């Protein structure tokens, strides 16, 4: 097996619907995911993340470009790539009339695992996802978050070499999200590779070795979360409520963003002292914190991740 789990070159996808202009969902996406990596595709709704994931997981044909999974061409020989992959589909749900235990077990059996292995992995996955207590209840009686955990349990139990997770923690409470994160980390420690989409910035930062920021079907930037944050031009964020009118005064220190009457300045730590001095002289209250991925995303994309 090659060390490159996934490679796409200039991948394009144009949706053509009768009576509507063609929509370019992917406009030449090139990316690579090494074996054992956790990589996040980060982007707003409609950026092209799910389209990329669907093509990579053999469920959608690209318009042009190439994409390979462990060296197998996904478009030309999807049947060769499929044994290596498993996918948590966006908005996927377990069968409502199966219990989580039946769901995971039967899915593993359908993938060709032996009874013993399937049974052992089912119990392990249910425990990891905190579902043991609900394992014998029909999924129709579970909450949305519990159903999503059942979906994730189903897929992580496969221990497939390459897992595609499309918004895997959507609808989950913070504790459940952390369980999923831990399970995903464990999988990569055991050699699996993860490509996930998310619009939770904290999830992308906590979980991924590398990120690709996608907007309008294009990769705008890639790197580690720290690389992205450094691209903002500073590592410290100073928030000055009521400081918007002093935009000109502060703009020489670094990147300034006005939001209502507040002013946010991104600076290097060396210049923090000067800013604080100026803020005190201007009788402004200042809040200092580290630059987050949110600022980086805002700078790269030009819009907040939640903005449609």
């Amino acid at each position, binding site marked *: 097996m090659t060390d490159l789990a996934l490679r796409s070159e200039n991948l394009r996808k144009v949706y053509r619907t009768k009576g509507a202009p063609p929509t370019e969902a992917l406009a030449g996406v090139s990316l690579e995911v090494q074996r054992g990596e956790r990589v996040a595709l980060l982007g707003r709704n409609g950026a092209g993340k799910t389209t990329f994931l*669907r093509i990579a*997981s*053999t*469920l*959608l*044909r690209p318009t042009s470009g190439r994409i390979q999974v462990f060296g*197998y061409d996904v478009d030309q020989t*999807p*049947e*060769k790539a*499929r*044994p290596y*992959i*498993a*996918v*948590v*589909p*966006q*908005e*996927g*749900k*377990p*069968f*409502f*009339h*199966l219990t989580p235990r*039946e769901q995971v077990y*039967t*899915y593993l*059996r*359908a*993938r*060709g695992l032996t009874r013993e292995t399937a049974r052992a992995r089912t119990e392990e996955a249910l425990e990891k996802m905190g579902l043991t207590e609900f394992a014998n209840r*029909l999924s129709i009686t579970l909450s949305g978050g519990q159903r999503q955990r059942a*979906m994730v349990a*189903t*897929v992580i139990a*496969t221990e*497939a070499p390459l897992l*595609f997770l499309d918004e895997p923690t959507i609808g989950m409470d913070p504790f459940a999200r952390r369980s999923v994160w831990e399970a995903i980390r464990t999988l990569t420690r055991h050699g699996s590779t993860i490509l996930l989409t998310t619009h939770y910035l904290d999830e992308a930062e906590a979980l991924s070795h590398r990120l690709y920021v996608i907007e309008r079907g294009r990769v705008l930037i890639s790197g580690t979360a720290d690389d992205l944050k450094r691209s903002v031009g500073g590592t410290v964020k100073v928030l000055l409520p009521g400081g918007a009118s002093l935009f000109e005064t502060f703009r020489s220190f670094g990147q300034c963003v006005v939001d209502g009457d507040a002013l946010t300045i991104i600076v290097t730590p060396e210049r923090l002292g000067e800013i604080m001095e100026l803020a005190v002289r201007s009788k402004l209250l200042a809040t200092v914190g580290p630059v987050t991925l949110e600022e980086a995303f805002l700078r790269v994309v030009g819009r907040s991740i939640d903005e449609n």
Partner: protein
Amino acid sequence: MRTSDLPPSTRAFRGLSAFLWTEVLVQAHEELAMATSMLVQGVLLVFVYILAPALLGVALVGAILYSTFTMGSRVLNEAAYVRIDHKANDLYLAGPMSPEAYFLGMAGGILVVYLTPVIILGILTMVVVHLTLLQGLLILALAATVWVFSASVGYIFSTFFRDNRAIWAYSSLFFNVFGVLPPVFYPFALFPAALRPVALLMPPSAAAAIAQASLGITQLTAGELSLAVGGLAVETTLLFLFAIYWARRTVRGD
């Protein structure tokens, strides 16, 4: 050995038995659907029993064929529902399980669970009509053929819908027009002569006509019998092969 290294014949049915069992479990948990699966047949049998008790045997054979025919409606609803609402296609088909196994497993699981009414009807038929072994086997083969046809139609149609609500009307229309209106529950001889070739090209009524002829209830000309047998065999085979092709074809969207 990896799945991709397996010879094509083995790979085509990879995951079939496990997915069939999955579908059996899913369906078996829906007790109400199981309990009501005999409703239409039951009501029609009661009507026939009250209005024309002499035709009860015909109606019972028709009810067997209708029961296997309506399994296609369940395949249609289930396949569309789990694809649209649950994304089960994505979960199962982005993996080593084959699309053929997905289609056949779903259809087979539904068959297993809803076979009980057919068995009950079979026993009743044997009591009322006094079937010979050959007649019994023929009706069984016809019911199986109608099941293959309807499951194929159901699966193919399921791929065209994007909204579950739209399915209910079409499903009900299709399966009642093809299963109740033509001579399935009543003798083929009562059907207008000019429309008989049409009825013989519809698999449920073609199967019913063959069954009725074998029981001596209906007389078919050699041409009519050929049309019924040939039409049933050719349509079912072609549709089944197309369903297999379509199952493979629709794994990936364009």
